[in-house]
């Protein structure tokens, strides 16, 4: 069994929380005591309010909206699912980016009565920017448009037209009613024209691609393990999680950014040594030579080196109240590395609902733009489009310690 991580996106009242509630309810992943608790809290249109399953904070229940991401879990015999239920409001864009950053798939909800709206554009842009491999567009509330195939096809056409400009590799469409459960877990008898599978069927069957298949092996060093005991007197292991590809004993290794070289002597796990380890395993690697390697360095297979540079270009999503102006300094965290960085320039801001690039002096909360960055020390990275694990970073404000931006290297 493997894990599929997905995010749900859509405008307020498009029924995201209801859809998740329905997925959990119809797949029998809700427990009796949870049901009793939401039944006690009241009904909507004579049905239990499934949205209450995900809105876990008092303020959310009071306002009836989702403020922060809730993570929900369920499994079927085929797969374990982790749902990031992200808020739809524009002012919580940063929370959507948070949820999207770890997702393999995005469900974008569209209200069948309204069709593609501004929020659809915005969310699709973020999904494309974060390179979520799969998109499932769920056209919801089909019960309110008489389950019309024509309405469904029109929205599908409208979406594909605007998605042309986006970098979305795999888009699927589904007509559903989250409130009634049509095509969510079970196929609907109200839409006999629909020949595809249900949403759950689709989520169970989709084949996941992972960075383990990458031809570029990457191993950021987290810690150096040196027991200094009699038994392990000379033990010096580099602990970390393989971000992409695989490593085998005997591989020639280059350490970045220093460029020092060695060979893999052993790959250790608690259960014993292994000959080959692959992403996303957490292992401890020992090298043949005593060379200088510390946290923040990256071990790569020689000949398959990433880019190493102090001048970076990236898309960033700004996540702080305090606006970003070029010239500001931050701490840049990329893999296990932390390095001081200064924003050189803001090339443009992207209007996420139209994809227009606009010139602007600074970047405000929830805005996305392209920047150039200069770092205090060289950074080893891959373009985000090639390896998410080494092409992503965050910026930390050293005054407030807040995470102020999410970045994707070009």
């Amino acid at each position, binding site marked *: 069994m493997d894990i599929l991580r997905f995010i749900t996106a859509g405008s307020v009242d498009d029924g995201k929380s209801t859809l998740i509630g329905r997925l959990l309810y119809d797949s029998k992943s809700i427990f009796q005591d949870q049901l009793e608790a939401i039944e006690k809290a009241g009904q909507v249109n004579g049905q239990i309010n499934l949205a209450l399953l995900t809105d876990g904070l008092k303020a959310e229940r009071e306002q009836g909206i989702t403020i922060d991401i809730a993570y*929900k879990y369920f499994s079927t015999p085929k797969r374990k699912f982790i749902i990031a239920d992200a808020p739809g409001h524009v002012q919580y864009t940063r929370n959507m980016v948070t949820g999207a950053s770890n997702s393999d798939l995005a469900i974008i909800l569209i209200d069948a009565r309204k069709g593609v709206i501004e929020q659809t554009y915005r969310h699709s842009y973020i999904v494309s920017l974060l390179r979520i491999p799969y998109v499932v567009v769920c056209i919801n509330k089909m019960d309110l448009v008489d389950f019309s195939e024509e309405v469904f096809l029109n929205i599908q056409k409208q979406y594909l037209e605007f998605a042309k400009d986006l970098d979305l590799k795999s888009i699927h469409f589904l007509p559903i009613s989250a409130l009634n459960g049509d095509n969510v877990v079970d196929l609907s008898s109200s839409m006999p024209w629909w020949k595809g599978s249900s949403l759950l069927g689709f989520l169970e069957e989709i084949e996941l691609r992972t960075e383990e298949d990458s031809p570029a092996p990457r191993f950021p060093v987290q810690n150096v393990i040196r027991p200094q005991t009699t038994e392990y007197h000379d033990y010096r292991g580099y602990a970390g999680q393989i971000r992409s590809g695989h490593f085998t004993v005997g591989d020639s290794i280059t350490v970045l950014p220093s460029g020092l070289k060695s060979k893999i002597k052993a790959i250790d796990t608690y259960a014993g040594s292994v000959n080959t380890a692959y992403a996303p395993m957490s292992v401890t690697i020992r090298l043949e030579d005593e060379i200088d390697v510390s946290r923040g360095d990256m071990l790569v297979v020689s000949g398959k080196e990433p880019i190493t540079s102090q001048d970076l270009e990236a898309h960033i999503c700004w996540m702080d109240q305090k606006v970003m102006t070029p010239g500001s300094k931050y701490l840049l965290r990329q893999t296990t590395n932390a390095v001081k960085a200064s924003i050189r320039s803001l090339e443009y801001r992207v209007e996420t609902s139209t994809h227009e690039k606009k010139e602007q002096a600074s970047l405000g909360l929830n805005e996305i733009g392209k920047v150039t960055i200069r770092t205090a020390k060289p950074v080893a990275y891959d373009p985000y489009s090639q390896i998410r694990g080494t092409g992503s970073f965050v910026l930390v404000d050293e005054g407030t310690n807040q995470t102020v931006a999410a970045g994707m290297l070009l």
Partner: protein
Amino acid sequence: MTDLHRLSHLDQLESEAIYILREVAAQFERPALLFSGGKDSICLVHLALKAFRPGKFPFPLVHIDTGHNFDEALKFRDDLAERTGEKLVVRYVQDSIDQGKAVEEKGKFPSRNAIQAVTLLDTIAEFKFDACIGGARRDEEKARAKERIFSVRDEFGSWDPKLQRPELWNIYNGKIHVGENVRVFPISNWTELDVWEYIRKEKIELPSLYFSHQREIVWREDLVFPVSKFISLDNTDKVETRTVRFRTVGDMTCTAAVESEANTIDDIIREIQVSRTTERGSRLDDKRSEAAMEDRKKGGYF
């Protein structure tokens, strides 16, 4: 690469948890692993072995002992510390009560669950812990479903759900100001079933409480409560002997048992797979109000 190399869901969850533990070791000066003697924190210790052996843990195991613990859990705790050779720190809620810092609840169902936070915060201050690793899972409770893996608490231990840091990819930001600390939850993404399947796969030892045994109980609000010197019985309570086990282990005053014949891990997994109630359904402390857990967390609770 072929499909043969795909990690199973348990291997993926394990790798993620090891990565998080190693981030704690790297980003903090004085971390601690909060150990309760329950299955989740026992799994954390197992994961720490995987993260740091052949080295020592870069943190002590810290137990906030409410004084209402099961004897079996305490014995297991001490044996585990001895077996691993890792440092164990124990601090007592009773001391906080004796010092007048915490006030014991009154009434028929008094619990020390909430005042544990007082002792915990004092312990954090005493050792200047900057990170506390815990075994909380997001599937346990709806307020926990909202929590980040690195969750920043202010000097009062308070959690502000509206002001959480964005947490992106697997880049964790452990930067804090003096006096603040971070609660770290390496098994956030595990479910109760994942924990049990992992215990089975890794052959992890557990206190005997988790397996079926005969015990004197009373019924309280439809829950099966263990009879102990910590609960007051009156003439409306009828003591019975039943075959039970515990699905979650907290204090004897707030952890209910379930009637069960399951005495192997396989039996337990089968039982959970068909169970229609959550693990927290047997915790009286969560049933107090709709936002019981959220309110306790704002007050510095784990």
